[in-house]
């Protein structure tokens, strides 16, 4: 009865081989969505089963795994995925971006720069950037095949005409290696520039839609834009209330029922590391303030 109840990293070897072959072709054809035979995982689709399968196919006992959800290591989703791989693959886990070898993410790219030894695995709900323009898979596939992205540009330009800016602030489309238009998953467009020439390998897994795609390290990734309306990052115009960071992506937190709110780093590991290093924001419980009021 001592035999492990799971395969290593949950997936059977045949499934891993199939996913591994898909990953290699995805790397060889940057931004192209490779179909794969997605498996049922012991968690609902909304929990990032595509990312989980990619992570399961690459993970080994030497890895150190970090899982983030909306920038946080501590949501239910992040904790359960981390536990899942701790249990099925026996890997070490961490919340530190710098210490991780594999980072599975939903919605954010860490603020701390990634390095060459790392793999960033994105959980992707809708991998097809052209889907909202064209529901037919045969048509979107043809558009990618021909590099025919005129409609995409028209849609973005309509946004500018209507809203004065491009309304898409999440899943803002990028062009990879001057060829494929790719959906960066629902990351805020603030993170798009981090994909460009990133030293880490970036892998994307969509479970329900059965697609794997990739950006190799040091690859050109450009957010679609127009000469008269260049791409701009967006963040709330405030420093983080906890660590004072002026260049991180912020979440708005409601602090009371009287409309009180504050802005804090979405990347909890980044924010905590800055606070540990002595950085303070307007809402931090700085010791000298406590003594002044006490």
């Amino acid at each position, binding site marked *: 009865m001592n035999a492990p109840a799971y395969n290593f990293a949950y997936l059977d*070897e045949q499934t891993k*081989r199939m996913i591994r072959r898909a990953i*290699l072709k995805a790397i060889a054809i940057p931004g192209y969505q490779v179909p794969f035979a997605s498996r049922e995982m012991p968690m609902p689709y909304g929990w990032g089963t595509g990312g989980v399968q990619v992570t399961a196919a690459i993970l*080994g006992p030497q890895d150190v795994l970090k899982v983030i959800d909306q920038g946080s290591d501590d949501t239910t989703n992040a904790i359960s995925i981390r536990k899942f791989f701790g249990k099925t693959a026996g890997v070490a886990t961490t919340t530190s971006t710098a210490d991780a070898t594999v980072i599975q993410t939903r919605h954010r790219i860490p603020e701390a720069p990634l390095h060459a030894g790392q793999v960033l695995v994105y959980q992707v709900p809708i991998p097809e950037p052209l889907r909202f323009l064209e529901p037919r898979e045969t048509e979107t*596939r043809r558009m990618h095949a021909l590099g025919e992205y005129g409609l995409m540009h028209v849609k973005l330009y309509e946004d500018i005409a209507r809203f004065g800016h491009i309304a898409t602030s999440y899943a803002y489309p990028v062009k990879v290696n001057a*060829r494929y238009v790719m959906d960066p998953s629902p990351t805020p467009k603030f993170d798009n520039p981090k994909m460009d020439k990133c030293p880490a390998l970036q892998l994307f897994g969509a479970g329900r839609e059965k697609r794997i795609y990739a950006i190799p390290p*040091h690859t050109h990734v450009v957010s679609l834009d127009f000469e008269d309306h260049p791409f701009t990052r967006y963040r709330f115009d405030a420093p983080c209330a906890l660590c004072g960071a002026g260049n991180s992506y912020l979440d708005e937190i409601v602090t009371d029922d009287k409309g009180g709110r504050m802005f804090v780093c979405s990347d909890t590991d980044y924010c905590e590391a800055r606070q540990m290093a002595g950085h303070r924001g307007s809402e931090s419980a700085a010791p000298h303030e406590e003594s002044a009021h006490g």
Partner: protein
Amino acid sequence: MTTVAEVPAGFADKVLSAQSTFRSVMDAMARPGSVQRITVPVGTPDEMMSGTAAIALTLFDHDTPIWLDAAMSAAPVIAKWLKFHTSAPVVADSSIASFALAGDPRNLPPLDRFAFGSNEYPDRSATLILQAESLTQGPAFEMKGPGVDGTAVLQAMLQPRDLFLRLTINEALFPRGIDVVLVHDNSIVAIPRTTRLVASGA
């Protein structure tokens, strides 16, 4: 007749050896021109390099038709070993092979004998695994492309000698194309279809 005992062993630990080998291949594909090492022990027929064997055990199965060049076909133990450990069908028609193994790539057929994939499904293309005389010594090949920070330099003794010249078809074919993994003993180097030769010399 060959008994199981006559077939060299393959991986001692199938699961972890395949994982470790895959990471080496993935790193190679993600960083074209870089030399990656396969560090796990593998039982292989004498006629096949250990890196080739490890890749086969990691990526081949009944869904991946395999084409063998004359050098690989000349040693029947290789086909037996592949069949025993991977169940992959060995095919004579190179155009339907997912992987092609060349033990003596001097006689590699023209690249258009292998699958390039289609523009709609460029992933349905062959990966060539070519054994090389050396991946550390020989002429220098300077290359660029996705996965390369600036340029990468590979020193290697490659066959066929005009390999990079032949691979220039990848430029016009893209997104279709041929991906190559070079093997020498337990060292591997990948040349995916996006890699471009910048310069070569002695």
